[in-house]
């Protein structure tokens, strides 16, 4: 049997409580992180991710105590992210029992951190989180630099499967990108517009001008072991994962990619596994409010032909 796809409940933690946000703005309280960690682990979660969602903005240290308590009660891997700025922050998290650290803003500000972490702890510990958002400002892009992957929407189904990329007279590479799924709301996919995927930092608040696909390739070369890819366009919407973004990133790298943002029902996980080469699907809200249990979601995926650990 081959490697299975991973189902990863994500716990956004604020002041020791799990919260769930919409479009990177926190709203509802969803419970105690340690109790939830145990519950998900018992239900068959393949891995867990804890994100200290306020850490980047307010400089809070991710809760080492919580990490230690979680490590004591579960025996599946877990990742901790949020507010990790330097080597010592990562070391503290790992020594308290986390298996991986996820860095985002710090990786953009100080890319050398990726290599430093990799050389000390090994690349399997280093998750780089990419928060990406469509940027429709394509007019002022310097064509000569060729540092942006520009997409435009095609009209027929599943465009990127044939790896079409069209070069126009200005030598800008256009990739056609798919919509999320046939019956998808077109809210995020304005027909005919050109766009590129921009890396955002500080919890999605600040743009970087960096192309997400270029950035994914760069962090792979710097020693990242995995990419946690969140689409800000779909996050919190519960309309489904961002298949266009996920496909584009999976094509660009040979390290595992976790899809995140937009999962509202098990079908969305099936879509992302069937239609992209992603390795894991992360979700928060569908698990938090007991809408679907982890084991039911996994059984559904397995019944639909996805390689799943049950």
């Amino acid at each position: 049997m081959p490697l299975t796809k991973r189902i990863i409940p994500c716990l956004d933690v604020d002041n020791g409580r799990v919260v769930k946000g919409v479009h990177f703005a926190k709203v509802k309280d969803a419970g105690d992180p340690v109790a939830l960690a145990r519950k998900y682990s018992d239900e068959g979660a393949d891995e867990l991710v804890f994100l200290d969602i306020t850490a980047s903005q307010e400089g809070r240290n991710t809760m080492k105590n919580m990490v230690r308590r979680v490590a004591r009660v579960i025996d599946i891997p877990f990742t901790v992210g949020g507010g990790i700025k330097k080597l010592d922050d990562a070391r503290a998290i790992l020594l308290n029992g986390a298996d991986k650290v996820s860095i985002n803003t710090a990786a953009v500000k100080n890319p050398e951190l990726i290599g430093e972490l990799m050389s000390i702890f090994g690349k399997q510990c280093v998750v780089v989180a990419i928060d990406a958002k469509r940027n429709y400002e394509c007019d002022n892009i310097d064509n000569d630099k060729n540092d942006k992957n520009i997409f435009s929407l095609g009209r027929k189904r599943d465009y990127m499967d044939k790896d079409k990329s069209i070069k126009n007279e200005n030598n800008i590479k256009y990739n056609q990108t798919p919509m999320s799924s046939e019956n998808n709301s077109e809210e995020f996919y304005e027909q005919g517009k050109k766009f590129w995927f921009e890396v955002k930092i500080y919890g999605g608040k600040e743009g970087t001008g960096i192309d997400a696909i270029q950035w994914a390739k760069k962090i792979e070369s710097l020693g990242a072991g995995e990419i946690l890819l969140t689409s800000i366009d779909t996050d919190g919407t519960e309309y489904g994962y961002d298949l266009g973004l996920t496909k584009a990133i999976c094509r660009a790298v040979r390290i595992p990619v976790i899809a995140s943002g937009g999962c509202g029902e098990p079908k969305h996980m099936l879509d992302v596994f069937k239609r992209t080469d992603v390795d894991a699907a992360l979700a928060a809200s569908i698990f938090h409010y007991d809408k679907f249990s982890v084991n039911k979601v996994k059984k559904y995926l397995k019944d639909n032909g996805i390689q799943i650990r049950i």
Partner: protein
Amino acid sequence: MDRNGAVNASIIRDMKSLENFHGLILPGVGNFDPAIISIREDKEMLVAAIKSKMPVLGICLGMEMLFNCSQEGTLEGLRIIDGQVLMLDKKKVKVPHMGWNSIQLVEHKWNVSKKTRIAESEIDRGSNMSGSRLLHRVGDNSWVYFVHSYRILPGKTERHIVVANSQYGDNKIPSVIEKGNVFGTQFHPEKSGPIGSQIIKNFLKVCSSTVIAKDK
């Protein structure tokens, strides 16, 4: 470790206190050369302890260190087991091999057990076809958690120490080795849920039943 019934589990930073323990785990996170450097001063004591039949469980990189050398680094390994450590082929599969995969037990050859001097009485024949002490009560195709970029390739005379393999892409990766008092897993039993817990308990059982022959 505590969760699985270890009476006294300690993280030791040098090997001088090794004789106070009944078993040793070489954990696996990091890179080959820094890991070898970190134990350089105590390498001889470590090798001597393993040769004196102290049970040792190498996990991931900890197992890779038991071999002669690795493509990940330039330094010499512990040379407890003949063989080398090779990189997974990035062109064929995503690297690292990360996530849950299953293990396929290798059918045990009884003539081999005599060569490696495992007394037959120590083996519960009924447990599973591998006859492995580490995999006691671990079923064929059990799920375990992997994170690694390298794989072991035991030398020709050591192929029989592989008691379980796993399939990744077209690669068959040795996932569990067992040679007398030396055990190794490419995956992480400490992160492999109830199956991993069983493997750790099995190792602790080996430790508690082994009388270390101290040849001083």
